């Protein structure tokens, strides 16, 4: 099935510059419908308020709710648990990657990353585009 290039994507990061970078990369990949949140709590509020996202791309280190906590909240919510979720973080300790995988993350990207990596990980989660 073809990927819906107009699907809304939620980018969650507490650094505006990183959100801007991911926005630009997504735009270059053909995804223009991008929403953003500054931490897990804001993202969860948007999702629970009814906004439907075809993909969530989230940082891990954020306050007051981390990306990992957001992931667990999403997977624990019947309405949201099917949302594809990619974690992007500067740290890749084995136990953290395993913890995220066990919590249901669909893929995991280590910062810094490039457009090719983002495209490859997105393709593995939502299909080729």
């Amino acid at each position: 099935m073809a990927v819906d290039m107009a699907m809304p994507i939620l980018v969650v990061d507490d650094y505006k510059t990183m959100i801007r970078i991911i926005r630009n990369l997504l735009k270059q990949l053909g995804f223009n419908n991008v929403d953003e949140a500054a931490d897990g709590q804001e993202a969860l509020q948007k999702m629970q308020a009814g906004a439907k996202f075809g993909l969530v791309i989230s940082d891990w280190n954020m306050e007051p709710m981390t990306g990992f906590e957001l992931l667990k909240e999403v997977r624990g919510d019947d309405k949201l648990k099917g949302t594809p979720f990619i974690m992007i973080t500067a740290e890749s300790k084995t136990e953290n990657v395993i913890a995220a995988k066990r919590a249901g993350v669909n893929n995991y990207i280590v910062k810094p990353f490039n457009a090719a990596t983002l495209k490859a990980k997105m393709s593995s989660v939502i299909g080729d585009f």
Partner: protein
Amino acid sequence: MPATDVATRIRSALDDIKSTNLDDPRLMEVLGLAENLVDSMKIFFGSLDSSVHGEFRYIAEYIARTRDEIAALRPNDIQNARLPTAGAELEAVVKDTEKATDIIMSMAEEILEENPTDLDAYKAMIDGKMMQMIEACSFQDITGQRVSKVVETLTHIEERVSRFSEVMGVLDAAEEQGDEKEEWRKENLLNGPQLDGPATGQDAIDALFDGDISDEQLGQDDIDSMFD
């Protein structure tokens, strides 16, 4: 009056009493026992005075040495000048990099948005934007100098604290429990990027696939293999 002087005076008083030719032998016996007691006390208090004096002298010297070492740390200089300056330098680094990033990204975004109908005008526009991006990169020189100053300050503090710790024979106390927010951070936030990057060795991969979870780092390729 020191204990040894007291004993000497009692001994002298006893000698005076004995020299008055008292007839009662029981009194003379009591005086003899008292003399022996005073002699014993004199020896005991003499040693006690000497050791107590020695201890107090050691403590006084230790306090004086501690004061000198603390003075050598120049804590007021560190607190009032060096640390605030280092903090200000780091804040400036953050602002400088943010500003440069904003300029570079804005230029790139404007180039991407441009529609090249007139090639000459397009090239002139690209040249102008590229020049601004190059100019923005000059932040690296300034931030490099700022970071060097901060490193210098940290080295200064490290050297003095190390010397103080060594001279005073200081051992680390148990770590104090932080406040609630700090505890949450420790529990939930990752440590951030590693100095040597997320490169992975074969050992880490083996440990992971053997089910032996280690603290080794994984690289993107290794993480990919977990999801493939």
